């Protein structure tokens, strides 16, 4: 859809424009109002993350009423003792959760992307029997709320004994109709039929043509779909909450939520606040780094085609 509709003009657009130059020329200066607006937005969007960063350096007492207040550091620095606490609590189960999150996100995300690349290419470049109806079904599926599938998936998986195993999270995560859709539209645009025909005339088989000709051209879309599906799996809460009960299999999201419930249980519960904040802080770092370091790819990918 829209992600791709603008592709044709994109290249010319990037080169041919210099928005700032245009505006300056007319207004004679940088725009103060716009920058103030952006500043307010940045403060709004970044404050919670700043709060979390600060909170991860405090112990429980500091969280409740430290010298620096909620948005600044205390005199005491407890970041490393909090990390130590994460190693001690239930034999370091937190790190196990973090590892599980990585396992689920990477295997689910990579798997979903591979399936999407193959299927998107197949839909785009072959006119096989049943393509129309199948693709129609797929587009309908984009609009099916995936959470509506969680409970039946749970019942199905439990009937084959897969509930409470890593497969109960990984296998359903392989489903990404939107990824296939993106890949199809991108492949249609970015992989010219003439190039494929030329490879075939040179004697390359269908599979080799795909690997050597199409795959390199599909790279921007592959990175985008990979990021979207890794984030999707990393974020997933409802599915693991439903299908996993063994604490050792939980991803970090469900695990931390459990700690929060424990800490809120009142007098009977335990206050793990400092471990929750430090654990949450550590768990958001990998994805933030991934996004910041891969921005060239996904920003290009969201405007698919610009890297063609």
């Amino acid at each position, binding site marked *: 859809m829209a992600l791709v509709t603008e592709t044709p003009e994109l290249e010319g657009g990037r080169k041919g424009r210099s*928005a700032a130059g245009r505006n300056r020329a007319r207004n004679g200066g940088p725009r103060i109002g716009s920058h103030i607006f952006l500043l307010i937005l940045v403060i709004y969007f970044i404050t919670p*993350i700043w709060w979390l960063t600060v909170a991860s350096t405090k112990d429980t007492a500091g969280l409740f009423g430290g010298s620096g207040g909620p948005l600044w550091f205390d005199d005491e620095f407890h970041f490393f003792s909090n990390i130590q606490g994460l190693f001690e609590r239930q034999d370091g189960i937190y790190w196990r959760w973090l590892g599980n999150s990585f396992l689920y996100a990477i295997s689910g995300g990579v798997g979903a992307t591979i399936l999407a690349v*193959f299927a998107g290419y197949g839909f785009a470049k072959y006119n096989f029997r049943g393509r129309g109806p199948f693709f129609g079904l797929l587009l309908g599926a984009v609009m*099916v*709320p995936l959470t509506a599938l969680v409970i*039946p998936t749970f*019942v199905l998986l439990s009937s084959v004994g897969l509930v409470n195993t890593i497969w109960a999270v990984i296998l359903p995560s392989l*489903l990404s*109709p939107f990824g296939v859709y993106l890949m199809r*539209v991108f492949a249609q645009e970015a992989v010219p039929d003439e190039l494929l025909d030329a490879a075939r005339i040179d004697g390359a088989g269908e599979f080799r043509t795909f690997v050597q000709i199409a795959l390199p051209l599909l790279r921007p879309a592959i990175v985008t779909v990979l990021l979207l599906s890794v984030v999707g799996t990393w974020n997933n809460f409802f599915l693991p909450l439903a299908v996993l009960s063994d604490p050792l299999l939980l991803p970090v999201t469900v695990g931390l939520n459990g700690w929060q419930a424990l800490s809120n249980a009142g007098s009977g519960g335990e206050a793990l606040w400092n471990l929750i904040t430090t654990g949450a802080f550590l768990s958001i770092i990998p994805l933030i780094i991934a996004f910041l370091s891969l921005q060239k790819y996904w920003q290009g990918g969201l405007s698919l085609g610009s890297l063609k």
Partner: protein
Amino acid sequence: MATTTALSSAPQAKTPAPAKHRPDKNYRRRQRWGWVFVAPFAAIFLTFLILPLVYAFRMSLFTSTLATGTKFVGADNYLKAFSDPIFLQGLATVAKFALIMIPAQMLIALLAALVLDNLATWASKFSRLMIFVPYAVPVVIGALMWGFLYSPRFGPAGSIFGIFGLAAPEFLAQDSIFGSLVNIVTWQWAGYYMIIIYAALRGIDPGIYEAAVLDGASDRQIAWRIKVPMISSSLVMVVIFALIGTLQFFTEPQVLRGVAQGAIPTSYTPNMYAFSLAFSYSQFNYASAISFALGIVVFVFSFLFLFLTRKQSGLK
């Protein structure tokens, strides 16, 4: 299916037309390779989408109790669902969220994208990334963080409002929990929508603006009369994403329940209701009916929205 034709007829309808191609035997044999490429996805699609849907539908037609065992009841569960005040209340809640949350997210995302599109300073580049960053934070962690920030014990609200000599509002009380949830979701998703809209804006041919400037159009006119109409298909897509997400609202209220137990009941949204029916009361048949009914509602609404906006989105 109308959506099919609608969505796939988007700009590049450059499908390899079989009629124009040489329809020889080689060509036809080669097309079968399509299935080879699509097959792995098709297997997952069947197992984890079609099968659960069919299964859920089947389950929803039965009822099972200890006394009578499993019994076929036809549409009874659906009649029960659509007259169940708890389910209807949940639907009303998510509808209210959709009406308030989606315009809020769209407005922030669109304004930010329009402003960013007009600037090319390092500050604007930096802001773009910072506005997007919450998307990289898992929803659960986002909700946990806001739970802390809202909390009268941990949160900064007390000191911030204290500066003005005001008492901090109780974000987690029954009256304000709705707004608190709207804020969490907006914070989490507006940046992502902004990036999609921004990418669409960068795709417009700047030559068009030059013509408008020559005609004496102001920046504001260019923004609302040229840019917004030209990216309407992206806007429609973003609204569809937001709509599907909002109607399945689950994670944020489920997590926030931990700190605001009195304010959020276990049946706050239809998904939470289905979850508690299934996992607290073992009523899997009725829970399936609720899930399925919710799925139908989401599908119908998305479809309706696409139909109503077919002109703006350029989908016919």
